[in-house]
């Protein structure tokens, strides 16, 4: 991490801090509703399923599958130019919620919907860790 990280960094707020704090400790933590039992992501103040405010942060397994993906052939601005082509994927976690992330792989052409994936924590700065995913078949 000698290079300066120039890509967009989340502007962490009180509602999202537990997620990013956990990521820094290499844990994937998301809210679960004590009322309906469902997990959700991104973190909210009210459960988006049943609108209860009885929520708790829970560590999840970090496993899931590819729901959809795209290979960026053009970068999302100059700071991503060196990474092209790269994979942005929507993962369905085994606990239910979907999350957008990157799949880190040598061969971007290899990704398919339904592929099993596992979280991999990428410490991009001393303060920020991004939960990315790898293909189990890699």
């Amino acid at each position: 991490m000698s290079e300066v990280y120039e890509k967009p960094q989340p502007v962490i707020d009180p509602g999202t801090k537990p997620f990013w704090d956990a990521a820094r400790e290499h844990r994937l933590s998301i809210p679960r509703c004590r009322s309906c039992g469902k997990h959700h992501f991104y973190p909210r103040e009210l459960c988006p399923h049943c609108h209860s405010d009885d929520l708790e942060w829970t560590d999840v397994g970090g496993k899931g599958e590819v729901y959809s993906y795209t290979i960026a052939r053009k970068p999302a601005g100059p700071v991503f130019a060196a990474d092209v082509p790269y994979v942005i994927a929507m993962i369905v976690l085994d606990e239910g919620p979907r999350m957008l992330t990157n799949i880190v792989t040598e061969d971007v052409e290899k990704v398919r919907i339904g592929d099993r994936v596992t979280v991999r924590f990428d410490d991009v700065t001393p303060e920020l860790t991004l939960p990315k995913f790898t293909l189990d078949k890699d």
Partner: protein
Amino acid sequence: MAREAVIVGVGDVPLKDGRVVGGGSVLQVQARAAKAALDDAGIPMRHVDGLLVAGLWGVPGPGQLPSVTLGEYLGIHPRFADNTNIGGSAFEAHVAHAAMAIEKGYCDVALIVYGSTQKSERSRTLGGRPPILTMQFENVWGIPQPVGGYALAARRHMHEFGTTEEQLAEIAVATRKWASLNPAATMREPIAIDDVMNSTRISDPLKLLDCCLVTDGAGAVVMTTAENARAHGARAIHIRGYGEAHTHWSIGAMPDLARLTAAEMASRRAFEMAGIGHDAIDLVECYDSFTITVLMTLEALGFCKRGEGGAFVSGQRTAPGGAFPLNTNGGGLSYCHPGMYGIFLLVEAVRQLRGEAGERQVADLATALVHGTGGTLSSGATVILSNN
């Protein structure tokens, strides 16, 4: 007798190579479009007492209160304002809101206006919005905005239903044929399926020619009562039904990536209000930010079943001379796309319903359906219009 809200004027500004002819600020181009629409209606600006705007200009700054700024600039004092911004579909929602305001007697003459000078200003990039609040979970991954979200939807649709990139290309090719009949269109040179397939890859599976243009543009729509229309000798286009909905903005929160839920909700309500079926629709103008937007919209509007959009658009069925005239001005894909496109769907539908569309005129038109999509497949708003 109950007041009936009607559309009496439409206007836009001339474009050359995607730029506003003669240049101008975003306020100037909106003023020109507003004047064109009011002149078309034969109604003076001083009669406008309802102002409906949505835009991406002047923020931070005067654009934070867009109708307040534009009312001031136009020299009017509206007593009804609507700054609803649900993305590019906002203008179809504005028609619904203006219709309710006019029919309730809350205003008499409503002006809906939009403008952008993004092309001239070179202000558009694929970079994301600031990674704050909900977007801190999207923009850190380098998703090209907004194409990446549409690409995720396209990939999922292909996975679930076997939709092909060639079928998406059919839409781009058919839309370009319509553009070739529109002297105002930015891109008029015919293209083939192979041209789309071989165009620059942007965000798989979407390629350059699957994507809308980046242009300037401004458009406006004037509405009033049927009675006032008669008094001004304006030809009225009737509003038979409308509906709107939105479901998400973060692509991660879209209920089903292969299904346009907002369009299903909006159009169902519009059809119910109109009391007509799909067979009664002679023309569809629907938002074509990307080819996949069109395919998913046609399914959601109910013109074909879910998953059958690919077959529906195959064989150039939506091209001039085809069974299903669609996006007859050349759409966002080939006519213009100044950031938010929905106003131009309305302008074209009205011109078609009045028989003013020149070489691209669709014959024997009575009823048109206009559907806008905004955000990242986020919002939908439908308006059903007729000329009788």
